[in-house]
């Protein structure tokens, strides 16, 4: 891999956090689904036994939250809403059709990715709070039974929404070729960057021609 022709998009610590989180999230999501859809109860085998799954699910969930909190700190500055995001919304049809014209002044993340970012961060926070309320044997005894009932309902809804968002996220990464390599190796090709994130590409190029340093 000739890194001179590539652009570093995601640093090692971010990639490592992302993929550890993916593994934890898979286990937490599958065990969660095993309780939400009882006919899929076998999915809790991801943690060995139903009893172990019940014990480990919340701890792994907290790991997912902590890793997401770290990634939030790393990525939030690229995910703030900007005026240029409006162009993406206006052309969302072309974006979904896979058309690369016209250039949409897209920064490091496009508007859809930003929505995903805030959706994931919001939902994991809701899952953390509602999860603490229903977490036995440690925290649930501190809460009233009516609040635990609300916690169970909210936790289920937020969990379903998050899994749906993640399915969308994983699909879009699979659809836009080169994205997964960006999260695995950290590098994307110059043409990938220019095509999908034209404004970010220009910023990187300007910085490189100025200082010769990659970001």
């Amino acid at each position: 891999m000739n890194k001179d022709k590539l652009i570093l998009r995601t640093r090692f610590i971010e990639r490592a956090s992302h993929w550890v989180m993916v593994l934890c999230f898979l286990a937490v999501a599958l065990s969660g689904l095993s309780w939400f859809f009882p006919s899929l109860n076998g999915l809790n085998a991801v943690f060995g036994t139903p009893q172990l799954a019940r014990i480990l699910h919340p701890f792994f969930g907290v790991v997912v939250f902590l890793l997401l909190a770290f990634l939030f700190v790393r990525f939030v500055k690229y995910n703030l809403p900007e005026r240029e995001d409006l162009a993406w919304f206006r052309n969302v049809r072309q974006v979904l059709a896979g058309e690369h014209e016209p250039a949409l002044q897209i920064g490091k993340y496009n508007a859809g990715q930003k929505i995903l970012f805030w959706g994931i961060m919001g939902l994991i926070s809701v899952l953390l709070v509602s999860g603490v309320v229903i977490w036995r044997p440690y925290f649930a005894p501190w809460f009233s039974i009516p609040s635990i009932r609300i916690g169970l309902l909210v936790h289920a809804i937020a969990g379903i929404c998050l899994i749906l968002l993640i399915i969308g996220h994983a699909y879009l990464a699979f659809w836009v070729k080169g994205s997964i390599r960006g999260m695995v190796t950290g590098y994307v090709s110059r043409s990938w960057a220019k095509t999908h994130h034209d404004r970010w590409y220009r910023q990187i190029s300007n910085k490189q021609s100025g200082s010769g340093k990659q970001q």
Partner: protein
Amino acid sequence: MSMQSQDIIKRSATNVLTPAPRARDHQAEVAKLIDVSICIGCKACQVACNEWNDLRDEVGHNVGVYDNPADLSAETWTLMRFDEVEDESGKLEWLIRKDGCMHCADPGCLKACPQPGAIIQYANGIVDFQSDHCIGCGYCIAGCPFDVPRISKKDNKAYKCTLCVDRVSVGQEPACVKTCPTGAINFGSKQDMLHQASERVTELQGRGFAGAGIYDPQGVGGTHVVYVLQHADKPHLYHKLPTDPRISSAIHGWKGWLKPVAAVAFFATLAGTLFHYVGVGPNEVEEADEKHEEDTHA
């Protein structure tokens, strides 16, 4: 559960397409009738329960009332609740209610339980926890409208009154019924118990207890533990016995409409991605661009 009863009419977290063994379901529904107006609060039923079920709760502390221990626990499945109530004329009444699982016809614990077969309901109406399947999530506690199940700190599993299912299945009455020295607790078919209860209610009403009545709340489909109350119009007097117990709407939503809605959302999302991919095709960067970029930056 080594002995197979094959009369399980409801099984937690089990699809209706795959019911539990239920070929032998022609049994009569049973009920335990607790006549609060006869109870003297001797706690013999509590002791009998502990004896028969081999339960030895920790010796507690006097908390200023007769309730001892202070609450139901994983090792106290039935408990006398003592309430001192003053009526309008200032007369003191000592209301004593034997608390424990009501064995609802529509059990909230069973509805909430996520583990297949951890809670079952027999054809005779008894709701039983199968502790070896329990995962300790405590959803049964949230599902119960009567605040009955308790999780053990020893093994992280939920426990409650079994209505002495082991005794009933061999033709005996529950231990508390057998022990009660005043005849305040009776056991038999639900029909017989309701008949006996209505006769007692008539008698109480004739003696001036105008509000006397049967507590067999229909919001949970009726219960297999039935009370005769001197003040059935005010059940909350009896240690906050709920007036109209129902499975919470949050539990109904979570175990009801949310499941099909979520299933549709999953299928729609997966179908959407599938059709998008085979319809639009992979989103690839133009070969020419790639070549051009490599040329200019080489």
